[in-house]
């Protein structure tokens, strides 16, 4: 159960303000969908959460502690593309997280430890419906299957936070619907807090417990670069989505009901 807190976060590149005055409290086990027009800083927002970028000002806290300066195993991620490793089979892709943790020098598991990791990975692959494809390479999979694989791969390390960067943006509508089901199921079964960036509004409301819209404020014509994007709308999704073990549905911020 993980909370995320943005406290007056700014991000600037060479004097160009991308994010300004971002203060957001994200409740434990929330599924936050971030929407907004292109170039409004959604991805930058996600990158700061990943520690791929550091905020210029302000603080980001996870469970009250300052965010580490580099990506860590607590924060899993699925990108729109390039999330899986092309040189590993489906099964090897999923086991990889276990191998990094279990073998510091070789990054590879053998014997009993490998069998144990394989069992765990196989269970996850079953969960995402990729058992039949476990010996294939990612290039042999469809886009939807690749994203299912990316989800399984990210989940094997049991991250506390899952970050999704337009993960289903390139998929066909039918496949999208299936993978939405899967995503909701995975969210309910785990305790992770999810932050998803998307440009698909219906996806945001379908999956999210809370939808944030990012927008640039009306700009000064003289100094267009001096205004960054910030949260302009913050909506709870109705009806609340319930996880079986968590009857009080996650709400905005620290509040438990609105």
């Amino acid at each position, binding site marked *: 159960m993980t909370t995320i807190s943005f406290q007056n976060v700014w991000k600037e590149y060479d004097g160009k303000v991308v994010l300004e005055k971002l203060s957001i409290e994200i409740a434990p086990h929330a599924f936050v969908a971030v929407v907004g027009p292109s170039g409004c800083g959604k991805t930058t927002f996600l990158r700061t959460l*990943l520690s*791929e970028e550091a905020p210029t000002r302000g603080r980001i806290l996870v469970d009250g502690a300052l965010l580490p300066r*580099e*990506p*860590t*195993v607590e*924060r*899993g*991620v699925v*990108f729109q*593309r*390039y*999330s*899986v*490793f*092309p*040189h*590993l089979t489906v099964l090897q892709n999923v086991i*990889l*997280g276990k*191998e*990094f*943790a279990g073998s*510091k*020098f*070789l*990054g*590879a598991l053998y014997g009993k430890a490998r069998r144990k990791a394989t069992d765990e990975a196989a269970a996850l692959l079953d969960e995402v419906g990729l058992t039949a494809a476990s010996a294939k*390479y*990612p*290039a*042999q999979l469809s886009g939807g299957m690749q994203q299912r694989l990316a989800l399984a*791969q*990210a989940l094997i*390390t049991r*991250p506390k936070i899952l970050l999704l960067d337009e993960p289903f943006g390139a998929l066909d509508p039918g496949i999208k619907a299936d993978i939405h089901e899967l995503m909701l199921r995975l969210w309910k079964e785990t305790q992770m807090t999810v932050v998803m960036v998307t440009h698909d509004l219906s996806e945001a409301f379908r999956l999210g417990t809370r939808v944030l819209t990012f927008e640039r404020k009306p700009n000064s014509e003289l100094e267009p670069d001096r205004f960054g994007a910030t949260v302009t709308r913050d909506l709870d999704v109705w009806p609340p989505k319930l996880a079986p073990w968590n009857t009080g549905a996650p709400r905005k911020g620290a509040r438990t009901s609105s």
Partner: protein
Amino acid sequence: MRILAYRPNKRASLLLPAIPFILLIALYSFGSIVRHVGNPDDKLLPGLASLADAVRRVAFLPDKRTGEIVLWSDTAASLTRLGAGLFFATLISLVVGLTVGLLPYLRVLLSPFIAVLSMIPPLAVLPILFIVFGLGETSKIVLIVIGIAPFMTRDLALRVAEIPAEQLIKAQTLGATTWQILLRVVAPQMMPRLIDSVRLSLGAAWLYLIASEAIAAESGLGYRIFLMRRYLAMDVILPYVAWITLLAFLSDFLLRALQGRLFPWFAEARVK
């Protein structure tokens, strides 16, 4: 119909590639016959019979002086040098290319240096190599390494830099250390590209090998060709050139086959 719309069928696709080779041989035979009509002792375009005779002499009969079969001892000497040169060049480019491509500090530190290094014409430093390493095997191997290692290193560093940032971030979120990323994510993806790089460097490697053998050697394919030039022995030189071409073609073919066999994921991943 437009010409570009005509496509050869299966049989034609097998036969057509043979035509230029047959034409070349026919043209050569014709030229040889014409010259021998004018001068029966012509050495410039030896006839097929004297070529076959020369091949029998160098490839199947032991040399009177050394007792060795010349073609094989030359081939062994040249391939040993070539293999050693390629091995060290590959090793250097693997270690330097991977780390320079992956680690920003090393990239800033070394990539301008490597870029300058790769601009040195290798044959211009050959005299230095002969002075420093003597006329033996070392200087020839070092010439090959100097000739191709900078190119291969730069190539590999660029290929590493082409790995999508998403992959490296993803590996970090799976808990990988720098070393683990190098070992499990970057290096395995670079292996098939390294084979590509070796294939591209083969031509240059042969060039430097033959150049160094021509200048100072006691055996080797390049040595033999330049030795035979003194006697205008085209009947030996031509088969040697054909043999070198065949060796180069075969090594390229083997490397490509090895790439497909060892890295089945690569062909498909490259298309995407």
